């Protein structure tokens, strides 16, 4: 069975675990870098990106996740997870390094404060009907390199991207009952999955 981990340092972890299980894959709560060896895919959940970055650095997750990506395993960042995956974070004052795995420039809290957080139906490449997207103090992508496919935009802002084995969204599929985004990601992870006996 395909094994998908959720980085469980802070944020909406149980919602992703639930989505993975409902979609028929095995869900793993990831608290230590050694757990990555066993996975086909890893989700970086929504939460506070500054908090998550500090904990990822402190507990040695950066290099192991970079190695994981290099092996062709699948990664999916939602909201804060998308920020952490970006190579360029606009106006970043953090001294700590971030993962920097996607060739994109991201702006944090780009739709305003919490009172401006919203729901909208989005067209997404690869899905046949609009997706109910929930944006919470969400980031958006300002620019991408040629290696990055734009998967969805909302009012001319890029809100979902894919670069090879890495997927990222500004919004939170895990807060809905719609399992199509996690389905897309599990398919990506399945392609990276190497059966143990081969």
């Amino acid at each position: 069975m395909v094994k998908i981990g959720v980085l469980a340092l802070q944020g909406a972890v149980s919602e992703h675990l639930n989505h993975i299980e409902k979609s028929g894959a095995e869900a793993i709560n990831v608290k230590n870098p050694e757990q990555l060896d066993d996975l086909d895919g890893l989700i970086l959940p929504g939460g506070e990106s500054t908090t998550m970055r500090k904990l990822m650095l402190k507990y040695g997750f950066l290099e192991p996740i970079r190695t994981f990506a290099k092996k062709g395993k699948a990664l999916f960042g939602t909201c804060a997870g998308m920020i952490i995956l970006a190579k360029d974070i606009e106006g970043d004052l953090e001294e700590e390094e971030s993962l920097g795995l996607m060739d994109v420039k991201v702006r944090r809290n780009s739709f305003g404060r919490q009172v401006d957080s919203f729901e909208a139906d989005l067209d997404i490449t690869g899905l046949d009907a609009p997706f109910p997207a929930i944006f919470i103090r969400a980031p958006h992508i300002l620019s991408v390199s040629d290696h990055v496919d734009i998967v969805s935009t909302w009012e001319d802002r890029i809100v979902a991207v894919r670069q090879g084995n890495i997927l990222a969204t500004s919004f939170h599929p895990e807060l809905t009952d719609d399992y199509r985004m996690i389905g897309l990601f599990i398919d990506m992870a399945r392609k990276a999955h190497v059966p143990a006996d081969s």
Partner: protein
Amino acid sequence: MVNTVVGTDRVKRGMAQMQKGGVIMDVVNAEQAKVAEEAGAVAVMALERVPSDIRKAGGVARMADPRIVEEVMKAVSIPVMAKARIGHITEARVLEAMGVDYIDESEVLTPADEEYHLLKSQYTVPFVCGCRDLGEAARRIGEGAAMLRTKGEPGTGNIVEAVRHMRKVNAQVRQVVNMNDDELMTAAKNFGAPYEVLKQIKEAGRLPVVNFAAGGVATPADAALMMELGADGVFVGSGIFKSENPEKFAKAIVQATTYYTDYKLIGELSKELGTAMKGIDIADLTLEQRMQERGW
């Protein structure tokens, strides 16, 4: 923008879900807010005084000076919460208009209404409210609270009340989940809880909103204990900036909350933190001095 909606339950509750596993810290100025953010806090609560100082000062405790809230909002990129008095419609609307990310309708301040809480479903900004049992939790959810926290006993540095409230709410949730459908209405009467909310709890197998621990968390081990008891995250009020070394203390509490079952680590984190806040035995507080008695 025909298909765009703000202030939905999913958006308001979702904001609290993003805070899970994190620590929300009380701060009284920009400088403290930056220390909290640097330590890894998921949000800050902007206040004029922390609860232990509210206790000492006595008199009427109100919404903070908006200048303090604004200063904190400018200083950090993490969400900023602020407290309004129970039932104070105008304080809540003012905080909403300022763009505060979350409002705590809080018993730490002197109540403005001794009968009614805010109808929180009418606001775009989400609210967090305190609770001691399932009835109180369900009434606040019924009014539109998007997040809960135990009341504990604020400003005491004593975890005993937060433990009592977390255990009680979770035990009562388990009771409801295991009930037959025909028992729910009487349970609603006995708990003082809206029937519809109990039905949701039974169906989902859990509270429909996130529930944090608050009111008495003073050490990394206290924070970890509350996570062990099923809290979704932790509020630390007076504990951090009343300790000897707030920066070290704040970092230790954040890590203990994330790795709450790594006891060896918590032991390491607890070394040489300096003196925690002094603390008050609950028995030394009269009923009138207990903030948890506020709220209806």
